[in-house]
């Protein structure tokens, strides 16, 4: 046993010291012969004969050396090294081919590795929490059926009851889902800057298993109503704004005018926004008290639970549902609660999952095309290398040996491609993780890690084997003198080749077809989404956070005066056409309130809910929201006057079908009269209709979490930003300009996942088209060069150049048509994968299929035309003489 081990080690070592060992052996054999000769001479032989006899008794020296090498080394590896050296030599000789092959494999593997890294991060890699598999997302099933945040969140009382009564969870924690994006204005230590602050329950971080990098978790005391403000900050904020100063813990910082003690800095690995609110940054965390007061706020919490060891999701679901029924019966005063449980990882990656699966499939198709293309190229090379191979087999190379040689070559190519691909993937993943404003979860943690690396290595070997296999199996077998003889007269040979090559090209075209159709459908969907009537006009409008400073403006009156002043100052800027205030911009946060008709009695199920927005006069004009009837708010809609409300068309239709809504009363804000009707706004997502909406005047309520000033003007964005700042500085000294956003940016963020998928898929499709056209070109021009003589004879017999050209074009188009036929069938079968990603387009959309048809036919025609023209220019005399 042990000696067997020694031998393997020794053999392995011998690989690397081959030349020393050879020299040793030579030296020994030389001495041996010399000593034998000496002895022979001593015995009385003449020197010549003595040496001859010595050499004879020694045996065949080369054979001994050969056996010696085999015994001491690892023949398998040595052959491999030999093949590798040979392959390198071959590729160096044909550098253009090698460069091209490496380039396309590189692009293919780069794309695969990038997509794999994204898939790995979003679907495979566990979340950066302790035992993430037992984390559960608990949401409320909205009774209205709408996708509004108020419906999906849960009231504080239910969380407390559920925590006390359940047996499935070791603990339940939550965060306040209606945190205002950018509502924390950090004052002092430089320029005022707005950050997003999320209130979390005291056990939120312990439950996730996130331990502070510095400092400690929130205490129960800090999580009570009315306790002094405590705050945790993200690692990024600490690094950037506080220069990684370790003494920050225990210090007080000024957030929007109130002093908060920093209790902890969170670890760099924790990024709330990346996981729970993709596309945004969350930097501050404060305790959220679970009290009667917060219970009265209604549905506010997004709940995360940790299952007890052994508890299943199904059991937890069933238990929560039955507990919820009892709780609802015991507390009729509360909002509804129908818990819906899913694994946290599924909740987070759920929305992007179909798109990722699609991209993974697409990149697989791209790799197949790359393989088909390289197979084709290698086959063409194989044909021109027949003579070389024939000579090698004449010298004793066996068929398996030759196949191994060919496979070594193709795997060498694909490995070189993989190196390039890995570089590309590094660049691509870096670019992806630095994309800002992408509403895709976990995107910032995308990177090439060990798993992606292993994937790349696997992909490289598999690719090499795949594209090398067909040409390798085409190594001529025992009929070697035929190959030797048949070096040039290629008219009959290559029939088998031609068949395989055509099949490869057809499959390339078919695969490209599938990708083009997929990309086409998504591009059309994307265009449809962008063309949707959003209800507002995002162009030439910007929004700036201008929350009233709580120390300067304490009363509602003071705040209303501030609003009037701010609006006037904005309107005074030359070039500003309209200005208005809102508490929530479209495509951002949302909340719903009851919006029943005053005096009408509803059962809880029927009670109409409407998305509510607190706005000022001028808002509709600034946003470009059309006023259908009635009037806009004015600055005289104050607490002293009658409460008014503006509703959208959907709510008007719902509450007063066929009636005039103006002058009607809605039971909100203590009863408000409808004074205007505006167009529906797509504020959830461009793909979703808006539902019922209502707008309350900002001067008649205090219930706004934030105030954005929306300004419509023809000035450039940077310009309007600085002018606004200048104009507002006297009344809003702590204004931070970092929160200036264009409305177009909001729309862009909202469609970013779709754009991401469309861009990638379109890129893949374009790459596939290029490869397919190269494939067609290679096959046709190869067949032309093989048939030069035949064409020459035909032309000598009277075939016109045009006729020859048409024939070759027809041959090309035949390939293309078969490929497209297969591709159309495949696309129709596969279109199902796309269905969830389409918008306003059918998966069998005739226009897309027609466009694909035209694109592919045109590309095939161009790819075939070049060799066809070359064929038509063949001079019969030279063609027949060259052979």
């Amino acid at each position, binding site marked *: 046993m042990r000696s067997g081990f020694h031998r393997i080690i020794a053999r392995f070592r011998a690989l690397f010291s081959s030349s020393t060992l050879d020299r040793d052996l030579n030296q020994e054999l030389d001495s*041996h012969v010399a000593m034998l000769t000496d002895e022979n001479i001593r015995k009385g032989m003449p020197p010549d004969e003595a040496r001859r006899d010595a050499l004879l008794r020694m045996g065949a020296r080369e054979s*001994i050396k050969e056996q010696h090498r085999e015994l001491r080394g690892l023949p398998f590896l040595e052959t491999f090294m030999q093949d590798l050296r040979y392959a390198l030599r071959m590729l160096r000789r044909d550098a253009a081919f090698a460069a091209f092959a490496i380039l396309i494999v590189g692009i293919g593997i780069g794309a695969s590795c990038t997509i794999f890294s994204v898939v790995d991060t979003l679907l495979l890699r566990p979340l950066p929490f302790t035992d993430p598999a037992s984390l559960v997302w608990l949401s409320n099933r909205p009774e209205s059926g709408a996708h509004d945040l108020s419906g999906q969140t849960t009231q504080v009382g239910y969380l407390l009851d559920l925590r006390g009564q359940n047996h499935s969870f070791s603990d339940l924690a939550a965060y306040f889902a209606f945190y205002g994006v950018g509502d924390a204005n950090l004052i002092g230590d430089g320029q005022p800057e707005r950050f997003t602050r999320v209130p979390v329950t005291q056990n939120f971080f312990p439950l996730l298993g996130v331990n502070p990098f510095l400092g400690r978790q929130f205490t129960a005391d800090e999580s009570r109503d009315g306790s002094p403000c405590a705050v945790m900050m993200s690692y990024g904020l600490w690094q950037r704004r506080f220069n990684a100063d370790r003494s920050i813990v225990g210090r007080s910082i000024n957030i929007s005018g109130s002093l908060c003690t920093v209790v902890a800095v969170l670890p760099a690995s924790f990024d709330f926004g990346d996981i729970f609110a993709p596309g945004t940054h969350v930097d501050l965390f404060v305790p959220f008290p679970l009290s009667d007061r917060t219970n009265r706020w209604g549905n506010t919490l997004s709940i995360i639970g940790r299952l007890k060891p052994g508890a299943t999701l199904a059991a937890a679901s069933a238990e929560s549902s039955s507990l919820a029924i009892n709780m609802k019966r015991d507390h009729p005063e509360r909002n509804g609660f129908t818990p819906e449980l899913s694994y946290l990882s599924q909740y987070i990656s759920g929305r992007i999952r179909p798109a990722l699966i699609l991209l993974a499939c697409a990149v697989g198709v791209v790799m197949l095309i790359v393989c088909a293309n390289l197979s084709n190229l290698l086959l063409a090379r194989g044909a021109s290398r027949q003579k070389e191979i024939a000579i090698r087999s004449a010298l004793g190379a066996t068929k398996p040996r030759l196949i191994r040689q060919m496979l070594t070559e193709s795997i060498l190519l694909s490995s070189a491609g993989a190196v390039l691909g890995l570089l590309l993937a590094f660049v691509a993943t870096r670019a992806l993780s630095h994309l800002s404003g992408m509403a895709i979860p976990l995107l910032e943690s995308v990177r090439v890690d060990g798993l992606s690396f292993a994937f790349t290595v696997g992909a490289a070997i598999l690719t090499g084997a795949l594209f090398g296999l067909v040409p390798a199996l085409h190594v001529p077998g025992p009929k070697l003198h035929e190959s030797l003889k048949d070096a040039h007269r290629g008219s009959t040979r290559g029939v088998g080749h031609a068949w395989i090559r055509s099949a490869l090209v057809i499959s390339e075209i078919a695969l490209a077809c599938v990708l083009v159709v997929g990309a086409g459908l998504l591009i059309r969907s994307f265009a449809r989404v962008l063309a949707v009537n959003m209800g507002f006009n995002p162009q030439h409008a910007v929004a700036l956070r201008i929350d009233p400073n709580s120390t300067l403006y304490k009363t509602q009156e003071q705040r209303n005066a501030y609003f009037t002043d701010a609006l006037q100052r904005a309107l005074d800027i030359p070039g500003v056409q309209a200005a208005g205030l809102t508490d929530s911009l479209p495509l951002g946060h949302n909340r719903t309130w009851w919006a029943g008709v005053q005096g009408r009695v509803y059962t809880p199920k029927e009670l109409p809910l409407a998305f509510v927005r607190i706005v000022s006069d001028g808002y509709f004009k600034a946003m470009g929201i059309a006023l259908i009837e009635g009037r806009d708010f004015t600055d005289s809609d104050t607490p002293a006057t009658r409460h008014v409300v503006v509703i959208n068309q959907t709510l008007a239709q719902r509450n007063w079908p066929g009636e005039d809504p103006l002058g009607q009363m809605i039971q909100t804000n203590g009863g408000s009269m409808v004074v205007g009707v505006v167009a529906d706004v797509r504020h959830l997502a461009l793909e979703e209709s808006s539902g019922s909406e209502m707008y309350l005047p900002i001067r008649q309520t205090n219930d706004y979490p934030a105030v954005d000033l929306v300004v419509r003007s023809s000035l450039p964005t940077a310009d309007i930003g600085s002018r606004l700042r200048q104009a507002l500085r006297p009344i809003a000294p702590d204004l931070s300009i970092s929160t200036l956003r264009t409305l177009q940016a909001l729309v862009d963020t909202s469609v970013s996942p779709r754009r991401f998928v469309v861009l990638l898929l379109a890129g893949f499709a374009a790459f596939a088209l290029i490869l397919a056209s190269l494939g067609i070109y290679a096959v046709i021009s190869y067949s032309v060069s093989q048939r030069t003589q035949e064409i020459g004879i035909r032309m000598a017999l009277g075939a016109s150049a045009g006729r020859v050209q048409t024939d070759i074009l027809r041959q090309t188009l035949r390939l293309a048509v078969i490929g497209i036929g297969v591709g159309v069938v495949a696309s129709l079968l596969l279109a199902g994968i796309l269905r969830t990603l389409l918008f306003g387009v059918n998966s069998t959309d005739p226009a897309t299929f027609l466009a694909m048809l035209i694109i592919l036919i045109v590309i095939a025609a161009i790819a075939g035309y070049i060799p066809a023209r070359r064929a038509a220019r063949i001079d019969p005399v030279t063609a027949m003489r060259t052979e």
Partner: protein
Amino acid sequence: MKDSRSDVLQGTLDLMVLKTLDAMGPMHGYGLARRIEQIGDEALAINQGTIYLCLIRLLQNKWISAVWGASENNRKARFYSITKAGRKQLIAETENWERIAGVIGKVLQLSPRR
């Protein structure tokens, strides 16, 4: 590929080399080849070069070790000597050989049944 005769020969050659080194102390390849020829009374007609294939095998198993030195008439040569592991192997192989030889001897003594 190799026929069975050379396999048997290989095994016996290994055993012979080990035994010779054990009995005579360090020797070079030429000396070993000559010695085995003499003992075999020139009946074992092997190519002398074969000895080096045997030696590399034994070396890799760490049953023998080698050092460069000078021969009696000042030729550069590698001197091989048996190692501890080699002695163990020699004992095991010797027993093995004797057992097999015994069995074969018995088989060959069987008188033919007429």
